[in-house]
């Protein structure tokens, strides 16, 4: 098969969302569409390594108000793999310090002629604010403790590749006729650690839940609200109680920078209660998957032998990060083409088709 040269040639399914701000408001089918597109692009780029030109001529702006290495580079690489240009803005709050509001900074960048704003900010809701204020695609790369949709997607893509693909029976998630809400039926996934301050947790929760997984949130009560039960999730305070039931453990980093109070007495005590170590691995299912969104605190939530062991898929998650970000960029661009088509005389779509 020849590599597609334009978005049209990629034959994407219809996609209504110009922005990707959260997973909570996407349908199971939409989440699966994102994952299938990621899978498709991963294969077309030889495992996220080769370049396509389907987004050539477009520019992706990374607007990061918080420190980030992997997510920002992952978005940059994803854009470049698809032929788009990238431009980096990392203000680290400095524009606010100079008196410019967040929205003004974003509008300045929009005026430079970009097609996407990929944004990370310490405050929940900032991508939603930008999606109202800007006329470009907005992708949330993490808004405080709220959501980090591409992280949730890459975690789920990794689970699908490892577990669902290996299942002897049942429908394939790649089959478009499969009921999206049943794709992860029978899987138990535990998110362990700082649920309160984790955007990764929230995006995983909604994504996993919508695809049919049983999701457990586990951690000290000061970081795991009992209200999660009201929202349909199992709440556990002792990792050892649930360990034997889990197909996947996602070990979240303790967000020291977000904690205004001390939710547990010491890192030492936290590690004793929640760290995934060799001893706990022996009590886990023999095919358990160990995930971590990173950056990992070795010795806190995960010991080195587990992080580097055969059950760990931490580095595959990083590769899949590029795949889901390529999907996010492509689908939002595709929605943008449709949107501009509907809001103009159709010249945008014509230009797209001609390019």
């Amino acid at each position, binding site marked *: 098969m020849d590599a597609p040269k334009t978005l049209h040639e990629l034959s994407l399914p219809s996609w209504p969302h110009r922005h990707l701000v959260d997973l909570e408001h996407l349908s199971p089918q939409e989440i699966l569409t994102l994952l299938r597109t990621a899978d498709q692009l991963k294969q077309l780029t030889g495992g996220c390594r080769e370049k396509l030109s389907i987004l050539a001529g477009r520019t992706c702006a990374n607007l990061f108000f918080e420190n980030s290495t992997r997510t920002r580079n992952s978005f940059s690489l994803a854009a470049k793999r698809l032929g788009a240009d990238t431009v980096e803005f990392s203000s680290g709050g400095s524009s606010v310090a100079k008196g410019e509001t967040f*929205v003004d900074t974003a509008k300045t960048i929009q005026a430079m002629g970009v097609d996407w704003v990929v944004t990370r900010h310490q*405050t*929940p*809701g900032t991508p939603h604010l930008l999606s109202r204020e800007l006329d470009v695609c907005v992708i949330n790369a993490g808004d405080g*403790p709220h*959501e980090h949709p591409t992280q949730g997607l890459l975690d789920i893509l990794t689970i699908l590749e490892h577990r669902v693909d290996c299942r002897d029976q049942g429908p394939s998630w790649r089959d478009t006729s499969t009921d999206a809400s049943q794709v992860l039926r029978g899987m138990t996934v535990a998110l362990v650690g700082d649920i309160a301050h984790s955007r990764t947790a*929230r995006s995983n929760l909604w994504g996993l839940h919508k695809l049919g997984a049983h999701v457990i949130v586990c951690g000290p009560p000061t970081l795991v609200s009992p*209200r999660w039960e009201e929202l349909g999730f199992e709440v556990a305070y002792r990792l050892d109680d649930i360990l034997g039931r889990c197909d996947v453990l996602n070990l979240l980093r303790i967000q020291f920078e977000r904690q205004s109070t001390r939710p547990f007495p010491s890192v030492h005590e936290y590690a004793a209660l929640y760290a995934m170590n060799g001893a706990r691995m022996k009590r886990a299912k023999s095919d358990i998957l160990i995930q971590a969104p990173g950056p990992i605190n070795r010795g806190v939530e995960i010991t080195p032998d587990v992080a580097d062991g055969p059950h760990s898929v931490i580095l595959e998650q990083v590769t899949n990060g590029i795949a889901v970000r390529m999907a996010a960029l492509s689908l939002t661009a595709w929605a943008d083409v449709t949107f501009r088509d509907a809001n103009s005389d159709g010249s945008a779509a014509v230009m797209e088709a001609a390019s």
Partner: protein
Amino acid sequence: MSDLLIEKGRVIDPASSTDHIADVLIREGRIVEIGHAIEVASRDTLRCIDATNCIVAPGLVDLAAEFREPGHESDETMASGSAAALAGGYTTVLCCSSTDPKMDSAASVQLVRQLADDVNGVRVHPIACLSKQRRGEQMAELGILAQAGAVAFSDSPRPMPSDALLKRALDYCRMFDLPIFDRPEVPGLAEGGVMHNGCVGLRLGLRGLPTEAEDLAVARDVRLAEATSGRLHIGPVSTMGAIDMIGRVKERGIQITASVCPHNLTGSDVDLCSFDSRFKVHPPLRSPRHVDAVRQALAAGVIDAVESGHMPRAWEKKSNDLDQAPFGAATLETTLSIMVTDLINPVELTWSRAIECLSTAPATIAGINGGRLQVGQPADVVVIDPSATWTVNADQFASQCRSSPADGRTLTGRATHTIVGGHVKFSRQP
């Protein structure tokens, strides 16, 4: 000054249990007659207002609005705040001490009164600082502030962090017979909070303002009021826990009063799902069961009054992310309509009780003349068209603040005439 005759309106005066169709005659700034088909000798110098199908009530009294002049004129000025109050049917406003300079000296209190006199709109009574520089450490010169014209003391909208200072001030204030207002919140439990601490906040990942931060402060407040016999007003309250405690101590005969803001009677934390800063208000929009409890408490009289909670903030401050955007909204122009739309029309509140909450009770709590529609009283009167329907557009507010949780809502009931001391200071053509 020509005489003013308000004809054929439904006159409601909760203080005298009046509720009937009558005319109201105003002469030289006072109400001189209330009765059926008042005969006036000469109609030449008479101004008439046809109040057929309208409510005629004592002008509304607000317990705590921020008029940000001097010091924060980009948020609100005395003129814009006064215009907003009059458009909302208010004839008297108690204004908060959050000016700059803060109202902790006789000069600053006199300055605010002077500014209000110059504007010559709504009646303005200063609430002076309870603590020096509103720092919550040392008592302000309450006696001197009282002489300068303060009618109450409070650091509100900032809560009072010091138990000892609040107790001392309640005790000390008894010699002036002036009330202290406390906005109940334990700061340590609410630090960095943006919204109600509930299921919605959990989903959104926004830092919470837990109900116990309010409950604990109310518990402290009622105990200190009991211990000192000082005059304490607690408000605004928003939680079931606060209401429960206030109800119980009132049953025991402790003299405290409480108020609620309109947004806590109608909106809920679900509104924050839009991440729109116009819903970042104080007290926070609570979950629906708290809202229901507050509404019932207002109808039952556990909560005495409705205060506007008018906290105007400039658009450039509000149009920011939810951490950066300050709490606050323009509410003076929507409070009455929200009461009509959400409480009176659904028959949760009678008109008489609503007017009591918005006028009679606040005047009593503040210890000021007003809130009564009776012969001999100053003619502070509002005429309300209970069936006027309008859609809130914050861009058209008289207030400088463009942020309102009610923006875009279609509401019923609106002031058509606001009369202060016999002068028609505001009228709206239908």
